[in-house]
């Protein structure tokens, strides 16, 4: 598992090795000060200690400290800096790959989950390559070199005896570590129950209240809450032992040193200086032992996170340019479907089934049908956001799969149903597709009937929208998204039921604008309102994913089929709304905002 981490570090190996070398050097220099204190003790005992020597030692300690400080600063900047750089580079790579993945990928993955990979998981990887690697090297080097010095330069028997508690220390860390891990998993499980319980209760609070079950729910929550506390306390019972126990074993080593080492000093077989030095070394040893558990944890988490990130990175984009894809500068706006069938998931019923039609350039085409009839899917396929299976979609007689994605998307302007805007100024939202001059933007604003609204905004076109800016009404949002598409003057315009929140008279004005503005270019107008397509050159009627009828509005009217019936129904509906007289005020926003 360490391999994967080393693999991603390869590009940074130079800096990384420099950092490791500095770290090792600092570790070794740290061993000098205990040695010096021992030397002082020896000279004192032998009455050699002079003021000159003392000054020399003091300066040496200071000099060493300066070197160590410089070394520490440098390795921190190198090693931890590299891990930051790595995090940055990986995030760039991840985002760049995410941009290549097709909408179907986003249908399968929740945004929150993808965000977690680009933030929390990357954090974990950074930790394992940064602090994790530092602690690993540090504890290995420090342990090995200290042990070697103790054995070789001081006394092998004393070292052996004093280190007797260390295996127990390691054992305790291992055994307790396992128990702690088990109980920790349990704690997380119980925490999950608690979260789930709260989630369920709060999302069904209406039922809870309607049945006056508040007290019963509190009681049930009490049980979940108690279980959670129990799990935590049982974890604490073990985890509270670990650190004091390790401290205890380290203390035992000191006791042995004091007793056995002290006796050796008294017997004259060990110098006082060596005794003092030995004590200093023991102090250096206990923390690497403690750190090792932490290191293992960090590296485990890092590799698990790396796997989750690489799962995204290794997902091949399903929709991309074919080799030798055709680049067409300007399309004419001719669209054809040939026996197109498409479903969003293999186990779902097709959203489109056996749809064939062809549209001449320059037409204003209406697409009508009820909710779920496949209208939006039709637009998504023209844009090649999804690939049909089986069947073909043609633009200018070319299968869209043979065209470069850029050629399609530069020539098709799309107004999606959702009215999504970025939290940037309105001007930037309208000019989303590229650089547009003020005249272009002004023309688009006029065509989308936005002028009056803009005049009422605090900063006109520069008004910020979204969370930190102005909240636009549904109709305003839709008209901004419309302007965003109109400004492009593309040969093909796709309007996907994008005027549903706009009142009928404004809708009529907008449609008239579009008709004059886009004469000679293809416009596909998807709507559930049949009346809105009365002026179209050609109308497609969809029902349940199938193309039921196609023709001019007059032809369709005469057929007395679904088109005719939908129209009759909607006329009644509008009449019904008109009956009301007084208009009710808006209800407060009861939509659930994006979850925190």
């Amino acid at each position, binding site marked *: 598992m360490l391999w994967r981490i080393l693999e991603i570090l390869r590009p940074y190996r130079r800096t990384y090795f420099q950092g490791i070398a500095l770290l090792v050097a600092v570790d070794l220099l740290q061993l000098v000060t205990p040695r010096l204190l021992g030397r002082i003790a020896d000279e*004192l005992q032998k009455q050699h200690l002079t003021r000159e020597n003392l000054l020399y030692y003091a300066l040496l300690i200071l000099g060493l400290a300066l070197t160590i400080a410089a070394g520490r600063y440098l390795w921190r900047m190198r090693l931890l800096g590299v891990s930051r750089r790595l995090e940055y580079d990986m995030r760039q790579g991840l985002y760049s790959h995410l941009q290549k993945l097709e909408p179907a990928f986003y249908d399968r993955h929740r945004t929150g989950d993808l965000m977690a990979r680009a933030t929390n998981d990357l954090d974990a990887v950074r930790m394992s390559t940064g602090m994790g690697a530092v602690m690993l090297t540090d504890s290995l080097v420090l342990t090995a070199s200290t042990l070697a010095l103790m054995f070789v330069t001081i006394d092998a028997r004393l070292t052996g005896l004093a280190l007797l508690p260390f295996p127990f220390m390691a054992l305790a860390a291992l055994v307790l570590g396992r128990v702690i891990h088990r109980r920790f998993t349990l704690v997380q499980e119980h925490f999950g129950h608690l979260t789930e319980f709260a989630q369920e209760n*709060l999302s069904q609070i209406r039922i809870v209240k309607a049945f006056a079950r508040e007290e019963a729910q509190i009681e049930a929550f009490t049980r979940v809450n108690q279980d959670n506390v129990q799990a935590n306390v049982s974890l604490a019972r073990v985890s509270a032992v670990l650190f004091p126990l390790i401290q205890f074993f380290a*203390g035992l080593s000191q006791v042995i040193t004091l007793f056995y080492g002290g006796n050796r000093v008294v017997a004259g077989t060990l110098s*006082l200086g060596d005794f003092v030095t030995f004590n200093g070394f023991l102090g250096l040893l206990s923390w690497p032992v403690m750190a090792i558990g932490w290191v293992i944890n960090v590296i485990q988490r890092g590799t698990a996170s790396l796997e989750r990130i690489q799962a995204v990175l290794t997902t091949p984009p399903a929709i991309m340019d074919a080799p030798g894809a055709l680049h067409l500068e300007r399309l004419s706006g001719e669209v054809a479907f040939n026996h197109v069938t498409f479903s969003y998931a293999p186990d779902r019923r097709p959203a489109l089934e056996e749809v064939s039609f062809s549209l001449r350039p320059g037409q204003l085409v209406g697409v009508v049908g009820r909710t779920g009839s496949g209208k939006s899917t039709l637009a998504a396929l023209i844009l090649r956001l999804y690939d049909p299976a089986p069947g073909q979609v043609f633009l200018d007689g070319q299968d869209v799969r043979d065209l470069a994605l850029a050629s399609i998307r530069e020539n098709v302007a799309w107004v999606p149903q959702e009215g999504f805007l970025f939290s940037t100024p309105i001007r930037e939202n309208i000019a989303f597709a590229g650089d547009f001059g003020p005249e272009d933007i002004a023309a688009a604003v006029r065509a989308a009937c936005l002028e009056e609204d803009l005049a009422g905004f605090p900063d006109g076109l520069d008004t910020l929208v979204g969370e930190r800016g102005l909240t636009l009404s549904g109709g305003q949002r839709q008209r901004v998204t419309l302007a965003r598409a109109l400004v492009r003057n593309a040969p093909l315009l796709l309007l996907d039921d994008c005027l549903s929140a706009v009142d009928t008279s404004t809708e009529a004005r907008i449609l008239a604008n579009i008709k004059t503005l886009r004469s000679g270019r293809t416009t596909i107008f998807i709507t559930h309102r049949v009346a809105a397509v009365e002026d179209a050159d050609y109308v497609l009627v969809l029902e349940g994913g199938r193309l039921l009828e196609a023709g001019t509005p007059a032809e369709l009217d005469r057929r007395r089929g679904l088109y005719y019936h939908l129209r009759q129904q909607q006329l009644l509906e509008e009449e019904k709304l008109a009956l009301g007289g007084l208009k009710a005020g808006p209800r407060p926003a009861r939509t659930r905002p994006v979850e925190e």
Partner: protein
Amino acid sequence: MAPHQRGLGLAGLAEEEKRGFDLWLLWRLLSYARADWHLFALAGVLILASTGLELAPPYILKIAIDNYLLRPPVAAQAGLVRLAGIYLGITAGVFLTNYWQAYLLQLAGQRVIYRLRQAVFSHLQRLSLSFFDTRPVGQLVTRVANDTQALNQLYTEVLVTLFKDIFLLVGITIAMLSLAPRLALLALVGVPLITLSTALYRHLARKAYRQVRLHLAGVNSFLQEHLSAMRLIQAFGRERANFEQFTRVNQDYYQATMQELTVSAVFRPTMDLINSLVIALLVWYGGGQVIQNLVTFGVLYAMINYTQQFFRPINDMAEKYTIMQAAMAAAEKVLGLLQEKPAVVDAPEVIVRPRWRGEIEFDHVWFAYQPPHWVLRDITFAVRPGETLALVGPTGAGKTSMASLITRFYDVQQGEIRLDGVDIRQMPQGLLRRQIGLVLQDVSLFSGTIAENLILGNPDTSRDRIIRAIEAAQADFVWDLPGGLEARVGERGVNLSLGQRQLLALARALAVDPPVLILDEATASVDSQTEQLIQQALARATAGRTTIVIAHRLSTIQNASRIVVVNHGEIVEQGTHGQLLAVRGLYWRLWQLADQEEKILQSAGKGFGP
């Protein structure tokens, strides 16, 4: 990163900046700890004991060196044995006090969050629906689960370490001063240096950390927005331009983290440097004193050890600072929630009766979720006990709001709603709602067994009653499920069809045997067989109860005793089916529309296929 930090928006961040160490907040928090004061007190005593014991080892080494090792006397061995024994005892003592201290603190901390969670959850149960209308569920779950967790850290880590560290610092200073006042004063030269560099670090680190948080929030909101709009970006071919934007955001974050790294990379080694400086001073000046026999070597050695001990708590405290900031932010959110007042409250004096007949009156009721945007205007009607009343009207006419008012989810602004002649505001909410069985459109069941769902946690419901409710709701399919009443539903349980869920929801309402039944009739497409089953069940269930049906399909309400037609929050017509058809008003038109719709659906079903 703690989970609650991830969603922190820019606005939240700015808010958090203003907050430092808020004493008032801390005081409010301590109130949840008061019940466990004896645990905290005991842990405090143990902390004092363990700290005292931890101060002993350098002193023991000093005695060993001075009394036995430097110039070994005759009885050196016996003395060493005694010292080693004492050392062993202290080591064991440190172990025990540290263990119990850590365990007790965890225990007390857990009990505090238990209590706090209990308080938050119970409080949420008591808040009115209007509170939930405008808040995302996820945010409230975070309050219950995560924010309380963050507070636990405040108790068990921050406050305790602070306490212990301060005590340790004082202890070390006293020990040093009493051992060798002149050397101690020399060692204390380090203190102003430490104070100065820590203050400088705190200032710089805070600034750097703020930048990091700010730019991290930037990365998060960029990802949130652009990942959810990826199809738009692709459809507009804006991948390159967006990648450039992302690069800027990512770079800003990278630079901020490097800034933070630089600050800490300078600070940590600087502290070690100051530590070494003090040791060098001690070696030089203290060594001179040793040569002159003014102090013993053992004392010098102990002073050096104490100096090294001195620096640990200082590094510690700097580290805990960030945890504390996050915990304070969580505390504020939790306490803010606890201060929300329920909009609908019981009257000080309530009317309680054992039996209610189920007569409902609306008396000139005006209602708005947000005045003055009236949703209901001057609504007046009455339903006699046992009658079935149908509410009819287009979407958004106010039908569901009327149902919500009868259960007193919201209070009316003007007028009065009465049950058996009593203003429902004079009744305890629980009592009122127990008289009303509510069957909602979207049937959501709780995860648990069928039986648990039917009694909704009311242990007083007899098994007999459950069985009768199932029978009345014609939910006999229950007996075919694996486990019958004990079959689990929900995420990890059996899959129920929409029709089955609706029958269960009906049974759930009937299990209470309420005098009033409110049905928000389901429009969702269930197959015709199930629909028939539901209709039959409804016909049986409504017999002998006051029933209010919110009708979406007119075909199902022809037999209602009375039909009230609402439009735009006002009653436009009322009467029986026959009467309303005769007046040729809105009801008549709606009826025609439904008829048309039926025809279109039928003809479309036959298919015009090409």
